[in-house]
């Protein structure tokens, strides 16, 4: 680990200026991913701007009926918040699916969104990786690909995005509010993360110095029901092989609206728009759920070791929809 300076930010403008002015500067949140990367030599910042004491630690109702989640809210606090559990259970479930109690007490909303892939080749600095070192090649392509992407990957990178929370936020149509050297802007969570293309080292559309200040959830109709379902190698404390965040509005025996995102399958939370389209107006039957899931996964391109993710994604999506159809609202 190379030596670095540390400063604690006491206001957002100062934090943005401090990072924006220096290419080797970065924000420090809970540190559960960044400090690991410092130890592994994946990143070598010369300055850390600690933003955990900024006044972004509240969860507030918005005038339009939505909810604003401050960027420094801890994952554990967010998962336990009554308004989240009652109105956005998919988000609480996704948070509780991630990491462990100790890590959720440290991890923040903004940091969770910006955590980086757990691709073992990205984490091993002795191997080539286009995400870690642009142009060096992809070791995963000819390596062990069991945990890698089946959707949206490129010849330059097949890594998956690790966040559970981000998958739920993608299905909820959440918006990320950021402030940066060029002012403030809102970015739909579905647009925050990038597919790898030929620039896999760029995880998100954020510019250097842009700071996430909050994540805003839209109000959901009262008839909405939602669920997060995660499949992994052990019962708890593991990253997703496949996960599903589903938000459904059901009227009688018909799906009125469906918003679905998949985790563990792509370089970003994968919004399952093909399945959503197939579900709108469809009957709440096993057949229509299965055929929507099949339509989505028909686009998948498995790698040598992860063909199992295709039926796993199809079945997990189908089962999640079936669960929701049999449930009360919310």
């Amino acid at each position, binding site marked *: *680990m190379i*030596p*670095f*300076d*540390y400063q*604690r930010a006491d206001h957002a403008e100062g934090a943005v200026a401090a990072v924006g002015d220096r290419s080797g500067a970065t924000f*420090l949140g809970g*540190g*559960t991913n960044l*400090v*690991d990367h*410092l*130890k592994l030599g994946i990143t070598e910042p010369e300055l*850390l701007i*600690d933003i*955990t004491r900024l006044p972004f630690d509240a969860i507030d109702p918005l005038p339009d009926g939505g909810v604003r989640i401050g960027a420094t809210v801890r994952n*554990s606090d967010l*998962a*336990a918040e009554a308004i989240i*559990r009652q109105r956005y*259970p998919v988000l*609480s*479930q996704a948070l*509780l*699916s991630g*990491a*462990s*109690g*100790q*890590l959720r*007490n*440290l991890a923040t909303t903004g940091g969770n969104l910006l955590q980086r892939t757990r691709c073992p080749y990205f984490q091993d600095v002795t191997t080539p990786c286009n995400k870690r070192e642009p142009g060096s090649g992809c070791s995963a392509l000819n390596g062990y690909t069991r945990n890698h992407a089946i959707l949206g990957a490129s010849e330059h990178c097949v890594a998956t995005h690790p966040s559970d929370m981000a998958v739920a936020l993608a299905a909820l149509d959440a918006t990320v509010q950021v402030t940066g050297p060029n002012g403030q802007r809102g970015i739909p969570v579905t647009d925050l993360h990038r597919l790898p293309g030929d620039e896999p080292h760029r995880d998100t559309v954020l510019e250097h110095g842009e700071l996430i200040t909050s994540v805003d959830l839209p109000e959901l109709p009262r008839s909405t029901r939602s669920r997060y379902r995660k499949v992994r190698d052990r*019962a*708890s*404390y593991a990253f997703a092989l496949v996960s599903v965040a589903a938000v459904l509005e059901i009227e009688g025996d018909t799906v009125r609206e469906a918003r679905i995102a998949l985790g563990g399958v792509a370089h970003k939370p994968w919004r399952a728009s093909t399945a959503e389209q197939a579900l709108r107006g469809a009957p709440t039957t096993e057949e229509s759920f299965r055929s929507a899931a099949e339509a989505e996964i028909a686009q998948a391109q498995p790698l040598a070791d992860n063909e199992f993710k295709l039926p796993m994604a199809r079945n997990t999506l189908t089962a999640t929809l079936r669960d929701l159809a049999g449930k009360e609202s919310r």
Partner: protein
Amino acid sequence: MDTRIDLRVDGEQRSLTVDTRTTLLDALRERLGVTSPKKGCDHGQCGSCTVLLDGRRATTCLALAVAHTGSEITTAAGLSDGDDLHPVARAFLDHDGLQCGYCTPGQICSAVGMLDEAKAGWPSLVTEHAEDSAALDESELDDEEIRERMSGNLCRCGAYTNIVTAIREASNGGNR
């Protein structure tokens, strides 16, 4: 880059100068001689470095010491009052919830923090997927809840069965 920090560790005020790269775990163990939290994986995966950080359980290997100046830290050693063991530590002894003992301080801190979380009504994935996820009664933590909530602490001896028993007893009112 050296920085002066203050920590309150097991009730004692400590001041020290650390390089910004120092983790909270290394500051405790290597600089202050507080060896109750253990260094296991050093990457946040095993839980053996768990302490109560400002009252909440947290892994210290991924926390930079400099970012936690002013914090109050309670280690497993600090939970007990001399020879008078904390009820969770006593339950671990009574039920043989330790074999080599290396992960035990982290398990105990994690269990104490976890029981407080449950008492405050915090859900786990088990609660949140239950048919009736109404208010959770801390005294009713079943084995499935205990296992889920303690999943951030790994024990390579596999003493889990007795750890679960110890925590179940501690959650039902401690020393019995």
